[in-house]
C-alpha cells in the first residue's frame, strides 16, 4: 500500500463515517488497539475493476455496526430490522470505495465496483488481520477498526 493510497483511505473512511453515521475516526498505533476476546466482528470487502483492480476492506465490531446503523437511520437499536448492522457496514464500504477511487484516480477514470460482501470474523481472525502489514488500525468513537486496500496494476494519476 503506497503512502498516497494509505492517507487517502484514512481521510475518506473518516469523512464517510462522519457523513453517514455521525461517527469520528482516527488512526492509532496497532499496539494501542483495545482488545476484546468476546467480541465478534464484521468484515466487509468491496472490489473495484477498471484501469487497475483491487479491494477495499473494512472490519468493525458487530455491536458497533448496529450503533452505526442506528445513527444513520436516526432510530434506537431496538427499533432496527435484522440485517441492518451488516447493511450499514456494506454501505460504508461501498461509499468509501467509490470516494477513495476518485481521491486517488481522479474523475476521468471509470471503475466498476462489486456488490459489497460481509462476513463474520471471530477474535482469532481479527488478530490475524490486525497483525498483517496490509491493515491500518483505527479508532472510531474509541472502538477498534481495521481498514485496508490492495491494488493490482497501475492506478491512473
Amino acid at each position, binding site marked *: 500500500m503506497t503512502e498516497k493510497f494509505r492517507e487517502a483511505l484514512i481521510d475518506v473512511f473518516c469523512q*464517510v463515517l462522519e457523513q453517514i453515521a455521525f461517527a469520528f475516526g482516527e488512526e492509532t498505533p496497532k499496539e494501542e488497539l483495545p482488545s476484546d476476546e468476546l467480541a465478534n466482528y464484521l468484515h466487509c470487502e468491496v472490489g473495484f475493476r477498471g484501469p487497475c483492480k483491487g479491494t477495499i476492506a473494512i472490519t468493525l465490531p458487530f455491536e458497533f455496526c448496529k450503533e452505526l446503523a442506528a445513527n444513520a437511520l436516526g432510530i434506537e437499536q431496538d427499533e432496527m430490522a435484522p440485517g*441492518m448492522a451488516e*447493511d450499514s457496514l456494506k454501505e460504508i464500504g*461501498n461509499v468509501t470505495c*467509490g470516494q477513495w477511487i476518485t481521491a486517488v484516480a481522479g*474523475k476521468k*477514470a*471509470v471503475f466498476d*465496483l462489486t*456488490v459489497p460482501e460481509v462476513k463474520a470474523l471471530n477474535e482469532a481472525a481479527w488478530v490475524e488481520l490486525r497483525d498483517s502489514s496490509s491493515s491500518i488500525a483505527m479508532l472510531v468513537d474509541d472502538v477498534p477498526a481495521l481498514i485496508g486496500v490492495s491494488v493490482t496494476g497501475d492506478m491512473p494519476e
Partner: protein
Amino acid sequence: MAYNILVVDDSAIVRAIIKKTLSLAGVDVGELYQAGNGKEGLAVLDDKWVDLVLADINMPEMTGIEMVEKMSESGLMKTVPVVMISTEGSQTRVEELKAKGVRAYIRKPFTPELVKEVIDKILGDEDD
C-alpha cells in the same frame, strides 16, 4: 401535488435513509415503492404509476444501468424520469448515464437539500 417515487437499491438501510431524506427534504411523497434490484424495479414500473425513480447503479441480479437500458427499450425512459444515486465519482460514467437518458446523478453521501433541489428541478420541469 404528491409524487409516487420508486427507490431501487439493494441495501435496506439505504432505502430507509432515502425515505427519511425525502421526508426531511419536504418532498410531497404519495406512494413510496421499494425494490432491491433493477429487475424488481421494472416489475414495480410494470404494475404501478411512478412519477420518479431513484436508483443505485451497483446491485446484484440487475444493475441500475441495465434497468435503464430495459426502460429505454420499452419507452419508459421517455415518461418516467430516473435519477441515479450512487457512490461512483467518475465524470465519464456520469456522462454515459446522461447519454442513456438518466436525468440527474446524486453522489453518496447526499444531503436532504441536494435531493430536494434535484427532485424539484426534475418534477417541476415535468409539471411545466
